[in-house]
């Protein structure tokens, strides 16, 4: 008997007990549907996490003092050591540049020091981001040229400032694309001057040397996509001007290009940094650790929810196993007859397996269909994103259906193949 014929035969069998078969398929469907929904949700979250893991923020290592690291750690009390002066760790501009020289060009040392400054070119009312700027303010990030070499951006006009600009404190400005548009419309921005004043002080004139935007429009994580954002050499920051040569930065960032292994970079920065700032007083910490921790937490949650969600499927398996055993009992006589007439035991085994697999697959189809309904419900009631790809869902559902049919099919099929024809025919 060919596989195809066996399939037809098993379908006919299932059709004979239609109600029973429908119930079984529905039970598997419910079980598979819940599990596929949950797994699909976590797959899509995982994908999102991986996407986030590739953005610049997570490719940035941080150098900070022990106190600062303890402050952001989770322990209520942290040991700082024996030799802790009241003065906290800080990096001066010259030390930061020294570190850059020790590192390869695929690693970018920079600091960020932001401030808001008002410009008379902008309308009094209009700023919408309360935390960074208000009214006619612009949020300016004081930084180093390496910032632009690390973050991917497209210069629409001009270019970024150089180390010389930083060292001599030139008042030059790189505008975000949106800000350039707001300030100058369609006219070229490069070469124009922008008056900027901090805390109602005397406006200082900044010369625009570049306009930068994100690589693609839909890049939501780009640092260059902000509306009122501008960048200037670190040394023109009001903080730097008041602190003078002794200005110290509590956090130094090291951006690592995509092609460099982060763990290796971490080791290299750790050793170079301790040569400059002294052994044990500096901690290099990767933002990626937070991301890894978050990913792990998510996976643990997924595992737990998945386990609870699979209870239904497990019950369905028991349920079907039970039913298959009952069917086997009913057909003992006809199987005995088959074997007596020369059918091989392997054939009997295959017959029962075929029946189980066809039920399992039908259940999987119902489950996949149900999972779309469940995802819709989840989205509406809890605003969770459950948007895994269609292919992933079908794959998961079919795989689950197959595993389930193996789980409930093998034992009854094995029992069936053991039937002794003589006894089966003699017993009523």
């Amino acid at each position: 008997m060919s596989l195809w014929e066996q399939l037809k035969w098993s379908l006919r069998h299932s059709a004979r007990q239609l109600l029973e078969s429908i119930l079984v398929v529905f039970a598997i469907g419910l079980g598979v549907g819940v599990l596929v929904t949950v797994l699909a949700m976590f797959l899509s979250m995982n994908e999102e996490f991986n996407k986030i893991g590739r953005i610049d923020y997570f490719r940035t290592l941080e150098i900070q003092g022990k106190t600062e690291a303890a402050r952001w750690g989770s322990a209520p009390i942290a040991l700082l050591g024996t030799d802790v002066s009241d003065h906290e760790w800080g990096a001066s501009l010259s030390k930061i540049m020294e570190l850059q020289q020790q590192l390869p060009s695929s690693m970018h040392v920079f600091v960020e020091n932001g401030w808001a400054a008002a410009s008379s070119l902008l309308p009094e009312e209009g700023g919408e981001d309360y935390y960074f700027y208000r009214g006619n303010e612009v949020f300016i990030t004081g930084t180093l040229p390496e910032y632009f070499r690390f973050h991917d951006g497209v210069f629409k006009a001009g270019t970024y400032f150089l180390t010389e600009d930083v060292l001599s404190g030139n008042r030059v400005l790189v505008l975000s694309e949106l800000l350039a548009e707001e300030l100058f419309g369609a006219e070229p921005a490069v070469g124009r001057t922008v008056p900027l004043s901090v805390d109602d002080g005397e406006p200082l004139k900044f010369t625009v040397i570049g306009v930068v935007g994100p690589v693609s429009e839909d890049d939501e994580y780009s640092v260059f996509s902000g509306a009122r954002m501008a960048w200037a050499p670190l040394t023109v920051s009001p903080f730097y001007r008041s602190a003078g040569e002794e200005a110290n930065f509590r956090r130094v960032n090291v951006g690592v290009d995509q092609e460099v292994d982060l763990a290796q970079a971490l080791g290299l920065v750790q050793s170079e940094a301790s040569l400059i700032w002294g052994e044990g007083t500096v901690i290099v910490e990767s933002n990626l650790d937070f991301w890894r921790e978050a990913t792990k937490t998510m996976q643990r949650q997924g595992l737990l929810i998945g386990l609870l969600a699979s209870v239904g499927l497990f019950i369905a398996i028991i349920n079907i196993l039970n039913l298959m055993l009952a069917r086997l009992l009913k057909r003992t006589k006809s199987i005995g007859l088959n074997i007596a007439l020369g059918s091989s035991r392997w054939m009997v085994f295959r017959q029962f397996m075929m029946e189980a697999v066809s039920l399992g697959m039908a259940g999987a189809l119902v489950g996949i269909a149900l999972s779309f309904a469940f995802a819709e419900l989840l989205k509406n009631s809890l605003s969770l994103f459950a948007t895994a790809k269609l292919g992933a869902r079908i794959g998961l559902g079919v795989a689950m259906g197959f595993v389930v049919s193996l789980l409930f099919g093998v034992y009854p099929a094995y029992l069936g193949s053991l039937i002794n024809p003589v006894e089966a025919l003699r017993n009523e």
Partner: protein
Amino acid sequence: METVKFTLRIVRKRPLRSLLTVLQVALGVWIVAIILSLNFQASGRIDDAKRTYGGSLAKIVVAQYEEIAGYRFMMSSASNLRYGDLARVQESDLIENAFIYRDLWEQQVTVRGLTYLVKAAAETTSEYADAIGLELVEGQFFTKADEQQRSRVVLISEVVAEQLFPNQSALGQILDLGDFGEGSWEFEIIGVYKLYPPLLDLFITQPHLIFPLDATRTWMSLGDSEPLYHSLYIQTKPDRVYEAVADVQILLADRATDDLEVQGEYFEDSTSYLSDQVQDITLILGAFAFIAVLVSAIGILSIMLVSVVERTREIGLRQALGATKGVIIWQILNESLVFSCVGSALGLGAALLSANTMLTLIMAQATYVKFGSVGGLHPLAAALAVLVTILMGQLFGLYPAWQAAKMTPVEALKLG
């Protein structure tokens, strides 16, 4: 008696089938019992905390308002409370206790030459311990006199004590806060306290060092002017917290101006997010549980159908011997009832054993809030789980029972 025998015969004849049926019922009961317990216990913990603190604890702040585009927004809260306000609010009959609480966020301390960073420290007044019910492991809280003299004493949490002075008493030990140009600042440890009971830290940050008010402020930071404080907590007569805050608003009316307003913040508000979260978890997991019970009831239905077909002959014979339709229906339903009951007992047993672990695990993974022990199997949850399962089992057993009853004896005997 006859019906019990009828069911027992099935169990003896088909032991594996009976076992599997019981097992799937047990699983269904287990998951429903666990998830309902989760809801009841977690909500219970939140309600407990609300009962203990919610009706009698409020934080008084001076909110700063700002007008933007014609609307008044609360922007921040200003430090505009003074030490004398503590005595002034006590004039209200509703207020039993009040304390000023100053968050220091962090404090560096040196013990035997080693410096540590303690991440949560606070300064407060002597009423604090009674008002929040602080439990001491050893020593005692500081007195009103300590508070007024800004004595150099400190209390530490048991977590900090464990790390700084393992296996020894912390009492009498010295914490050195450093040198601020007035010589070394040495604080004597006079007490070690337990961490807050669960959920209180949603309302008042959990400190790990507690100093008398302003004891760690240098003369420089204090200056000559009267120190200002950000928040003051009141403990009121039970369930009178809203009226008490209204009293405070009148008593401290001079602290409010055009854009400053004396306001109360309540424990209820700080737990509403958590309550919502518990509801969400219950909803998702409850859906799983419902589906599990549904599948298990479907299982009973299909297996009873098989069972009825197998016993067509027996049922026909009974009918021929005079059994009414009612008796036949009762017998089949009784069979599913026995399976449901045995399964329920098994499931409840499993739930009883595993509830504590499961609940703690789920709450820890899902909320990030320290609940302490969430508790185990909730009696109401157990009762509901059994009730739902048995009702579902009986409801789904009706169809096969009706199938059995509608057979005519002649047909049944012929078919069998």
